[in-house]
């Protein structure tokens, strides 16, 4: 049984049909990526899984449980977390508060998790008492990932984590993604940086105007002529 199973999902964005019936699976402990141009429906798909948007039809199953159109809080409590596009850290909360708010639904002790986070992101430890808004773009992205991890997710969804970051920082972010995945967390990643995403992912799906048009392993898609022409610029 896959960790996450999407079946024939249709979602409207205002009057526009943004997602026109897609189905895909995310196996446990894998890195899966959805690539596609702006407006292909990638973000809408993630937001629908997170419960922020209600689909028109279709189902979303997580570990066999139907979580379609459930409350975002319930979805977080089941172990799905979203690192939103544009990081969206809370600028007037301290770094520590940003981390704590990621664990909002948890009632147990957070010390071990904070140590784990500070091991993964030593920079955040130095900045514990700083306001989130004073961090650099790369640090904010790290904080957004760290905040999502504080909910102890089984599946971490990431919306364009490389957006607006310098190439060196993008490499750091992808190193972190691989490290988090090695520690057993499943990753569902959407990216415009298709090259980076496909190199990292086990499975890739190509999304075009609300439909999945291609599926394959990350490596296969990297060498696929159509993908190369459309998304890799080679």
């Amino acid at each position, binding site marked *: 049984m896959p960790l996450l199973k999407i079946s024939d999902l249709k979602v409207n964005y205002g009057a526009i049909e943004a997602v026109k019936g897609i189905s895909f699976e995310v196996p446990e402990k894998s890195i899966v990526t959805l690539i596609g141009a702006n407006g292909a429906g990638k973000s809408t798909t993630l937001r629908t899984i*997170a*419960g*922020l948007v209600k689909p028109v039809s279709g189902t979303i199953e997580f570990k066999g449980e139907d979580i379609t159109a459930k*409350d*975002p*809080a319930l979805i*977080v*409590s089941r172990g799905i*977390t*979203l690192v*939103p596009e544009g990081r*969206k850290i*809370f*600028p*007037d*909360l301290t770094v520590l*508060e940003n981390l*704590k*708010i*990621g664990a*909002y*639904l948890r009632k147990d002790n957070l010390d071990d998790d904070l140590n784990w986070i500070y091991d993964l992101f030593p920079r955040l430890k130095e900045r514990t008492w700083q306001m989130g808004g004073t961090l650099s773009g790369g640090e904010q992205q790290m904080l957004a990932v760290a*905040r999502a991890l504080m*909910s102890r997710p089984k599946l971490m969804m990431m919306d364009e984590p490389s957006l607006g970051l310098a190439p060196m920082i993008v490499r750091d972010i992808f190193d972190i993604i691989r490290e988090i995945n090695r520690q057993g967390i499943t990753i569902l990643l959407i990216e415009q940086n298709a090259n980076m995403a496909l190199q990292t992912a086990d499975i890739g799906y190509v999304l075009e105007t609300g439909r999945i048009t291609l599926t394959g392993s990350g490596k296969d898609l990297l060498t696929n002529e159509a993908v190369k022409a459309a998304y890799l610029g080679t």
Partner: protein
Amino acid sequence: MEFINTYLPYILAGISVGGQYALIAIGYTMVYGILRLINFAHGDIFMAAGFMMVYLSASMPLYISIPLVIILTVILGFLVERIAYRPLRTAPRMSIMISAIGVSYLLQNCAWYLTSGLPKQYPKIPWISASVSIGASTTTVVTLITPILTIVLIVALVLLIKHTKIGMAMRAVSRDFETSQCMGIKINSVIGITFIIGSFLAAIGSLLYFTNYSTVTPISGAMPGLKAFVAAVFGGIGSVPGAVVGAFLIGICENILKIKELDMTTFSDAFTFALLIIILIAKPTGLFGEKITDKV
């Protein structure tokens, strides 16, 4: 000494009414901070608390009627949010504002219906209605305890916002609904709690205010509500400390204008608004306002 004896009562009255405005202003500023909504019904919830006290204290001892007034006011504030604002959560902001104006008139009309528009005598609350003399001037106990009680409640509120989990959630929600939801925060509960806190403070404010003014009418909430709203804007709407500082300043200034020798009593209300206009020209976001007022 002569000087102090003459003017002290005005200053004390100003501080006292400032504290009462502050307790109302917090309700405006917190709701604005989270919903970007000016809750026009807030002054009328304050008025409703006044009438509840009039009717409840007629048949019950004070030690029951006072807590009951506070509880019922909190329920009223919560219900207004639940019935009139929550269904409009995704509607344009103007719709919610119109809904708020509607609730304001509904509460006033209900009060007219119940009282036929006659002013009702506010009950004397023993001890806090008592007179006390300071030097050569006399004042009431309520004048003296209002600022103290106000400060205690505000310190408690600030601690709640800064140092508790729910306070952290309130700060997060006031910044970004959607990301807060992604954290597992239930937006509606946080908004509900905000209305509960605002109504609780308005209920306390009404107990202190009407003790000083002795009668309640259906439009009793309008002027203090408006003044408190001005105080919130003056201090920078969305900011709790700003609302408090604004409220005390307005309370003190309008009472200084009532000094007999100045002969300006008639203008004390107009003055409040003149002050607001001047501040907003000099500093459009108010004394403690955020630079970015629009929600990202």
